[in-house]
């Protein structure tokens, strides 16, 4: 009899994993709160270039025919009794559970931020928010743009640097850069936390006249005076604020509750990806507490590990990251590392930018698993080297 695998979350990781399982061995069900699947990296281009294509497809069309889809919001997960409850009153059981529950933006953590994001938009939550931000950038005639992540945990760590560089590119193309001041806020000691990537990024920011305020953890925003204050005691005035909100794990009640850390991220074994204390429960993607970047490629690689484990094969996650970084003006670089191999310096090229664009184009196909041989070869050829 096939074992029942229940996947909570229909994002990149959940969808890839469900499609990777063999329907002769597993009866696979995905529970997704949304009937739509958003390609999240596209929000950057909606917000900073006014890209028109809607990066959304129906989740049903992205899943293999063997995968059951339940469109419902999970409210409670009891790992002891193997019971999952939903908002519509469903009770779902499982033999194996995969938590691909993701993270969500939570501007309410910072005084003034919810009001600020609602007025100016952001590029880490929804299509509507990204388009709102584009309308403000499109209409921007001059003044101070302040951009940064409010807290140290950020979905897609390259995205803050990408945002400020694309804003710079837009203003230059429109001849408004001279009337604008660009300020980049970061909670880190330097613009990009990994030193090897920073060696590439920092000179580019300097060459483009972008001011950097390091050690800037957003504490509160005075929306009357248009000033952002940091925990460290600094402040900056804005005309157009682009602040990436804090992120928290999904709003699901867990039993036992201590499988979550204080930020509601799932306590996950770094190598087996099992949730602490439960051999039949795995976690993948942004919702884990793994010390890696929260990114689609992470979810992809973790889904491969869990698929192998569920097939009874040896499987261990090595912490591999592979994040493309758009440097503007058609150039890009990659952030590649793993748990035991530090991120190495990667020269910016047009090819790397093109690769980022191609990854976006083939995303929908990659969810089905049809490109896995190509990805396997790519990951092998680009594997980080020992330090």
């Amino acid at each position, binding site marked *: 009899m096939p074992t029942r695998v229940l996947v909570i979350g229909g994002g990149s990781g959940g969808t890839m994993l469900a499609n990777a399982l063999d329907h002769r061995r597993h009866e696979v069900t995905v529970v997704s709160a949304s009937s739509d699947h958003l390609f999240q990296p596209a929000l950057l281009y909606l917000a900073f270039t006014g890209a028109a294509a809607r990066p959304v497809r129906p989740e049903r069309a992205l899943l293999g025919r063997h995968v059951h889809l339940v469109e419902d919001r999970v409210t409670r997960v009891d790992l002891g009794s193997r019971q999952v409850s939903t908002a519509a009153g469903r009770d779902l059981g499982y033999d194996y559970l995969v938590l691909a529950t993701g993270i969500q933006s939570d501007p309410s953590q910072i005084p003034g931020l919810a009001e600020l994001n609602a007025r100016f938009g952001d590029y880490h939550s929804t299509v509507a928010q990204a388009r709102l931000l584009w309308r403000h950038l499109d209409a921007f005639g001059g003044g101070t743009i302040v951009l940064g992540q409010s*807290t*140290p*945990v*950020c979905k897609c*760590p390259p995205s803050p640097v990408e945002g400020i560089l694309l804003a710079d590119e837009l203003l230059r193309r429109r001849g408004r850069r001279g009337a604008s001041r660009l300020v980049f806020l970061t*909670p*880190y*000691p330097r613009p990009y*936390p*990994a*030193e090897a*990537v920073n060696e590439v990024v920092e000179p580019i920011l300097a060459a483009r006249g972008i001011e950097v305020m*390091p*050690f800037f*953890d957003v504490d509160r925003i005075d929306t009357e005076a248009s000033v952002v204050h940091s*925990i*460290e005691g600094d402040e900056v005035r804005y005309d157009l604020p682009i602040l990436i909100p804090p992120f928290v794990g999904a709003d699901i009640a867990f039993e036992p509750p201590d499988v979550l850390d*204080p*930020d509601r991220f799932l306590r996950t074994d*770094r190598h087996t990806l099992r949730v602490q204390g439960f051999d039949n429960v795995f976690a993948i993607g942004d919702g884990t507490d793994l*010390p*890696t*970047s929260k990114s689609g490629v992470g979810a992809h690689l973790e889904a491969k590990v869990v698929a192998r484990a569920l097939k009874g094969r040896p499987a261990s996650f090595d*912490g591999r*990251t592979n*994040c493309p970084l758009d440097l503007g003006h058609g150039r890009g670089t990659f*952030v590649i*590392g*793993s*748990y*035991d*191999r*530090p*991120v190495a310096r990667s020269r910016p090229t047009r090819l790397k930018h093109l690769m980022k664009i191609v990854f976006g184009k083939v995303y929908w196909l990659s969810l089905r698993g049809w490109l896995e041989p190509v990805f396997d070869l790519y990951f092998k050829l680009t594997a980080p080297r020992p330090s």
Partner: protein
Amino acid sequence: MEPETVPHTLVDARGSACPGPITDLSMAYRRSKVGDVIELWATDPGVKPDVRAWATKTGNLVRSVEHQPDKIVVVLEILRR
């Protein structure tokens, strides 16, 4: 270990290279209060200069930095918040 040296908060950032241990330290700092002690474990050698620069900027104290075979252990005291 003497009870008074037991850290209030242990932050395990071993294996973290990107975004890096300073992420975990900053998150712990957000939740901290004056008088708290944070013990940070890391494997990324960049943690040493980063933590010292962080402490100078934020007005907090690096009590010790110790190299152990499998990790670097940094103990910080929160003086300002």
